[in-house]
């Protein structure tokens, strides 16, 4: 095993620990603010994985857009509404809690079994890739050729979300004219 490989393994384990630890933290922490910060940690350690998997552009997008922009929006909203917002949620009894844990654990166990069984076959081998695999230029080329339609539709989805965000988040007109009672 070369020195480079050992280094990669170490980085990988660090990132994996960061990923899973931060994911658990997102779910387990009471304070939504800390959860959001944990998610940022999760996103950044995922970006490390992406780099290891030669997905440079995705990694960059992950850090810049996701961890950078989206999460900042999250933090703003948490700051605005407070971290302990609770909604009147119909249902949610204890058996559902238990069921949730069991279902998620079963899901995970099933996936791990599948992956291990799959790994026994041929997951050890990966195809050879070109040097420019995953760089912005190659991604851009795919987006403009094979996935042109997807590229356009993404913009529509974002447009719709923008409309939604604006009309849901903005104050009601009646309130603005009448003021808060």
């Amino acid at each position: 095993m070369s020195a480079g490989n050992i280094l990669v393994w170490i980085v990988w384990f660090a990132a994996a620990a960061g990923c899973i630890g931060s994911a658990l933290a997102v779910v387990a922490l009471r304070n939504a603010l800390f959860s959001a910060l944990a998610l940022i940690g999760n996103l950044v350690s995922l970006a490390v994985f992406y780099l290891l998997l030669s997905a440079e552009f995705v990694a960059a997008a992950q850090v810049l857009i996701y961890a950078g922009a989206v999460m900042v929006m999250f933090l703003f909203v948490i700051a605005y509404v407070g971290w302990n917002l609770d909604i009147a949620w119909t249902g949610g009894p204890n058996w559902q809690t238990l069921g949730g844990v069991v279902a998620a654990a079963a899901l995970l166990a099933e996936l791990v079994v599948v992956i291990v069984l799959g790994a026994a076959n041929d997951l050890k081998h990966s195809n050879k890739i070109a040097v420019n695999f995953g760089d912005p230029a190659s991604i851009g080329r795919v987006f403009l050729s094979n996935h042109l339609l997807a590229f356009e539709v993404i913009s529509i989805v974002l447009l719709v979300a923008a409309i939604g965000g604006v009309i849901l988040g903005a104050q009601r007109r009646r309130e603005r004219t009448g003021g808060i009672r």
Partner: protein
Amino acid sequence: MLGPAIAWYLVVGSAIFAIGAAGVMLRRNPLIMLLSLELMLNGANLVLIAFARRHGSLDGQVFALAVMAVAAAEVVVGLGLVVAMARRKIEIDVDLLSRLRK
């Protein structure tokens, strides 16, 4: 390919997905539910990118980018709803206060 084989990435991705799923099912704080939803999508993204590496095709990475965009879109709408809910709650509290004062 340096480092662990694809299977290791898949295990981590699945773990993140499962943790996120548990979060959505267990937590009742809307903000944390949204965050858990993000976790699920990120788990899926890791799997996609790992498979993209394995097959040496960019389709998986493109899919992952699309998922990121969609995740952002869902967050926008979700946060809009959270704000609206919070505002309604404040309204109700204000209502309650003014009624109590009378």
